[in-house]
């Protein structure tokens, strides 16, 4: 092997190792990993099973909210959510039909919502304003219409 090749490969390897050490540290020490909830649910019976029999916004603590949400072709329930600024919101979601995506544009909230699985993702909303929520996994002819908003006041 040439000397320059050795230097190049050493630097490349060091860079790659650096990348995954940082990724690992953030994931496991800072708990910044991507959403990976593992609870399941019968996708044919979502309406009958708690908590999805009553979707809605629930206050679960001081400045803490849980949004229990179903996604279905081509809408979110509940929609047009309002929450006070500074609150920490956990979204608990499942799909009643096909695979959807849940993304809040301009934030890092991005999770797949699949039939049979419960997805959970938490976000603190500090900045007041209107946030666009959209489905980002193709779910059929009206996929582009599947959106709603979260208003932070």
């Amino acid at each position: 092997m040439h000397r320059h090749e050795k230097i190049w490969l050493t630097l490349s390897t060091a860079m790659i190792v650096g990348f995954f050490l940082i990724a690992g540290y953030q994931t496991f020490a800072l708990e910044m990993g991507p959403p990976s909830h593992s609870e399941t649910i019968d996708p044919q019976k979502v309406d009958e099973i708690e908590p999805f029999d009553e979707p809605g916004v629930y206050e679960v603590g001081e400045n803490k909210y849980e949004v229990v949400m179903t996604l279905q072709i081509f809408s979110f329930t509940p929609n047009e959510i309002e929450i006070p600024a500074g609150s920490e919101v956990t979204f608990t979601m499942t799909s009643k039909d096909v695979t959807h995506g849940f993304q809040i544009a301009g934030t890092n909230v991005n999770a797949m919502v699949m039939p049979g699985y419960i997805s959970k993702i938490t976000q603190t909303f500090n900045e007041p304003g209107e946030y666009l929520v959209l489905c980002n996994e193709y779910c059929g002819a009206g996929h582009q219409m599947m959106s709603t908003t979260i208003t932070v006041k």
Partner: protein
Amino acid sequence: MGIAKLEDAKSSQSLPITKPESRLYMSFIHVAFISLLIGGLMGLLQTLVRSGKFELPWGIDYYQILTVHGVILGLVLTTYFIIGFHFALMGKTVGISEKQRKVTWLAFWVMVVGTIMTATTILLGEASVLYTFYAPLRAHPAFYIGLALVIIGSWVAGFVNWRQLYVWKKQNPGVKSPLAAFMVTINTLLWFIASLGVAAAVLIQFIPWSLGYAETINVLVSRTLFWYFGHPLVYFWLLPAYMAWYLVIPKIIGGKIFSDSLARMSFVLFLFFSIPVGFHHQLTEPGVDPTWKFIQVVLTFMVVIPSLMTAFSLFATFEITGRKKGYGGLFGWFKHLPWKDVRFLAPFIGMLAFIPGGAGGIINASHQMNAVVHNTIWVTGHFHLTVATTVILTFFGITYWLVPHLTGRKLTPQLNKLGIVQAIIWTVGMTIMSGAMHIVGLFGAPRRSSYSEYGGTEQASEWIGYQLAQAVGGTILFIGILLMIYIFVKLTFFAPKGEEEFPIAEEEEDAEPTPAFFENWKLWIAITIALILFAYTIPFVDIIQNSPPGSKPFDFPIGR
């Protein structure tokens, strides 16, 4: 005595390609270029629709044309071109028998029948499920059966390649297999092992379910099998481009292969690390164990190393060649590269595009950073740089010599010039389109979405300017496609008769001999399988054991 070394096989590097062989190889390439035209038109329409200034006529659905675009460019164009190129390389270096040729025709026709079946269902609006066909959206059964036939046909073609090398090795015992044949064998192995996953999903899950024999489908299993295939798929596209970079480009610039062993090593590493990594497409999915997601992310990073090895050896070739020709100075060798030769220029632009393309890929794979870009149009911008620029421009670069070589014509100076214009148009169009996609993706604009104002929110209104830019870029790109089709037709039917060189570089005279262990295919396959079993067994068993009740099919969302 160190490691056993292999003898060189200079004599068999350049076999003549006969007429019937040419016809076979050209058939694959014809399908690829027809696909380019159809798929390119769909791409143009997509950007126009998304600009908000244009609506599709006759009630055609946006997702129908997007399915055409993804299937025909992502799956059909690439697979056919690659198989044609693989066979040309094998024919040139190890030869093909008449029987092997006949079996390859069989493979070709199986693939064509499959392609037509799938295409028909899409055109009838019975399969607007996009090229990833995620369950539980259900397409017409013929869509899945057609896909299965394409895969099976491609396997037969790959088996013929293996047989070609096997026969050659029998005739040349102890001799090192030609580098080209080695690379083709790696890529067909990669394809075979990877497509077993999607074939299993299609044959065991989708076909019975779409026919109504199975009531429900396991959605997460189907997605996991798809992405077990989906990531190596992109390396199946990329490796032929690397073949051209390692084997062809050195010859075109008047140089030699930098290092035979390094080239083989990088291909072996691609085989190892491109398959056990599919979870990086499922990072935001529920039901997949987070630890195993991370392990696959680490494995994903490993695949960066052979790419960086390739980059090193390419620039080393450029420099060594330039210096040998006597171009001094720090960058003299760079200035004197054959910029006016499109066989060099087009792939070179492809290499440059892989710098931002590869960097973007690292971002996508970076676990938590993935949440910023997952399913945004950033991702579309990313793979239009990698596959639709790096790979496609290299394929165009191959076309400029391969097609005239096969048709017994010549790349004229005039066509060479048109090719240069083509490469520049593509670069400009793609910079605009892909650039706009990357930026607006970071703001959260989604991919796979028809035009929408998203309820008139302020955020979405800021995206529209970028969508207009994509339409401008898309229009320029489509002009580039028309020009490429013109060049292809010229090279196939009208260019003056002559003999165009099939450029394959040789090794340096005093090159280090290649170690014999590179021919140890059993070892490479065993390591590949071990890595796959390591990365997938535990999480896959976990997925199956913790499966929810399956999903019934959904037809109405896609208008069936």
